[in-house]
Structure formats: C-alpha cells, structure tokens
C-alpha cells in the first residue's frame, strides 16, 4: 500500500534521513521514533505530500503520490502538530468543516456521535476558543471516529496534551482502524497500546 523508495530529506543543510525504505501493507502499523529534531515531522509531511523529499519517492498502491494527486488525498487523513481548530467556530462546525473539506458529506448526528466517542459531546455547541489544549486535540481527533474514514492515517504526535482517558479512546480507534484493514503511521513519545500483528518501527536519527 504505502511505500517509500530511498527517501532522503534535508532541513537547513542537515541531512535528517537518507535511503529510507518503508513498506506498509493494509492493516499495517508503522511507529516512527526518534529524539526531538530527528526528522519525524518532516518524514510525516513527506508522506502526506506536503514536503518534497530531496531524493526518492513515496508511492501509494504502486503509483507515485505526486501523480495520484487528489486520488491519494481522498485516501489520506493527516493530522499534524496544529489541530486546525478555528476559535470562532463551534466544535461541531469545526468538525463539519474538516469533513466537508475532505470530501465527505456526513450527517450532523454522526458528527455528534464522533464527538461522543472522544468524550466531548457536551462541548459540541461551544466556540472552540473556550477549549483547553487537550480538548482542541480531541476535537481534531474526532475525525478518526467518523464513519467511512480514510484508508491511510498519518498521525503526528496525536497523544500530545491528551489525558489517560483520551489516550485510551484514541488507541481503541486506531486498533479498530487497523482491524478494518486501514494503515497507520504514527509518531509518538508516549507508548500507544495498539496490538497489531506485523507492527513495524523505525528509529530516525540513529
């Protein structure tokens, strides 16, 4: 499904990684580890097609992601460091917007249900400006609980600012995604308890 061939990236004249080969199948989990500044986020952005690698290629189902374009982005769910939550919109409106942007028309009840699964159903009609850091993160992560989710999840530090209860909820969503044949690439400093057969792990900066 997701493959990289001899991927290399440089940032500010420093080589972060080179000759990186990844092969991730349907239902596969890849954990990206490494110290601060070792290039985890850069790798995730390369995989999402945001950052152009200095060498090598990222392939999805055998084709280069650059040539796939929207066909790749329809299969992709990328959550970066910033939760992309707008202060002026309510929690529900924020989630509704990100659904519609990703091309899915999802009913309001389903969005409310997704918020419930992240434990923030009570906040649905509150402007996101009143949320705490962890609640914002939960709002962004509620996309994982929507029906018909993307095939490939790229989650960059999804557990940052989350409490133990939320970590448990996110872990079980990830496990369900993998069991349904989705692929997952994850960077995290905390351990996420997802039991997956054939889970891989790479260490950057070593």
């Amino acid at each position, binding site marked *: 499904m997701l493959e990289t061939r001899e991927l290399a990236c440089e940032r500010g004249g420093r080589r972060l990684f080179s000759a990186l080969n990844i092969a991730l199948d349907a239902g596969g989990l890849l954990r990206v580890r490494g110290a601060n500044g070792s290039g985890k986020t850069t790798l995730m952005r390369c995989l999402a097609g945001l950052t152009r690698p200095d060498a090598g290629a990222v392939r999805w189902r055998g084709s280069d992601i650059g040539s796939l374009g929207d*066909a790749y*982005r329809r299969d992709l769910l990328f959550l970066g460091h910033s939760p992309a*939550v707008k202060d002026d919109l309510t929690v529900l409106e924020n989630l509704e917007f990100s659904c519609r*942007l990703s091309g899915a028309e999802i009913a309001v009840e389903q969005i409310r249900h997704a918020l419930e699964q992240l434990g923030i159903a009570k906040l649905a009609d509150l402007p996101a400006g009143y949320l705490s850091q962890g609640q914002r993160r939960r709002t962004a992560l509620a996309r994982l609980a929507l029906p018909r989710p993307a095939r490939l999840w790229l989650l960059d530090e999804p557990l940052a600012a989350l409490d133990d209860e939320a970590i448990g909820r996110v872990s079980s969503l990830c496990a369900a995604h993998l069991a349904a044949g989705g692929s997952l690439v994850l960077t995290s400093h905390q351990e996420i308890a997802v039991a997956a057969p054939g889970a891989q792990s790479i260490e950057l900066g070593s």
Partner: protein
Amino acid sequence: MHGFGIILQRDLRIALRRKGDVLNVLVFFVVVASLFPLGVGPEPNQLRAMAAGVVWIAALLAAVLSLPRLFAADYADGTLEQMLVAPQSLLMVVLAKSAAHWLLTGLPLALVAPLIGLQYDLPIETLGVLLASLLIGTPVLSLLGAACAALTLGVRGGGALLGLLVLPLYVPALVFGAGAVGATLIGINPSAHLSLLGAFLAVSSLVGPWAACAALRVALD
C-alpha cells in the same frame, strides 16, 4: 467547484462572528478619505479634482491593511495545511479565499465610496462612474493581494513587506480607476478607462491565484 463553496461559506461565517475586523477596514477607509479635505483646505474645485484619486488611494491602503489576515490565521492554526492535504484543488481554495476577501472588504468599500464622493462635492453623474470603477477594480486588489499575502506568509515583518510588494502592482488599477472619474469630470466618456480596468482584472484573475498557489506550496513545504 465543491471546495469553493465550502471555504467561501466558512470564511464568511467566521467574518460574521468577528465583525470588528470587517468594520475596522471600512472605518479606516472612511477616515483616510476624510482627512484629505482637512489637510489641503476646503477649496471646492481642488477637492473635486482630487476626489477620485483620494478615494482610490484610501481603498488601496485599506486593502493592504486587511491583506495580512487573508492566510495568516489559517496558516498559524494548521487549517491551511489541512486544505493542502484535502482532495480539493488549491486553486479553488485560493479563489474562494480571494472571493471572501472581496465580499468583506472590496465590496463594502465600493458601496461606501459614493458617499465620500458627495463629501468632495463630486457631481452626481460621476458618482456612478466612481462606484463602477471600484466594483471592477477592487477584485484586482483581492486577487493580486492574495498572491502577495501568500508570498509573505511566515516571513518576520511580513505586513510591511506585503505593502511594499503589493502597492506597485496596484498602480494600473489606480491609474485607470481614478482616470475614469477624472475623464467624466472633464466631459470625456469613461468607457475606455473602465475597459482597460476590466482587462487588468482579467489578467489579475489569471496571474494572481496561480502565483498564490505556487507561493502557498512553498510556504508550507
């Protein structure tokens, strides 16, 4: 087209909840245009001759004031990143944001401009030309402004740089826009000026969004 509607609707909704941002630009425009008679004295012929130029320059400055916000908030909170990884054409994203910017700044400025014209004792028949020149010209400010706002995204002191970058690009709009009203004042048909302004709008709508897309991709690399 789908993405266009989604983003336009969202930008307008956010603006409705932050009416202050929209009003600031409009009030700035009115204040700048009203300061000139205080500075140059109340000589009616002089004021009439300079009215169109003053209104147009005030509109350019108001646009520059509003442009840094076009992409900055979406860039800072990660929404822009989500727009790039979404299955939507980036061109539609840029066009939607430019359209929202015009609806929230250019259009109100154009609608208020005839009142300022009255303040400068412009004859009634030239007020329509002033309005028409601004209706054709203010979309140029949003389209070229989007490209420059994208270019200065994430640059320290980007606001000042944005002004330096975008104001020279606005010169043709200023010349033809103010020229149309000037021509009417001396009894010449303004349609030539307005046609040239329309041509400049056509060029801007091709070049502006395309340049903004390229600049956004670089800013988020």
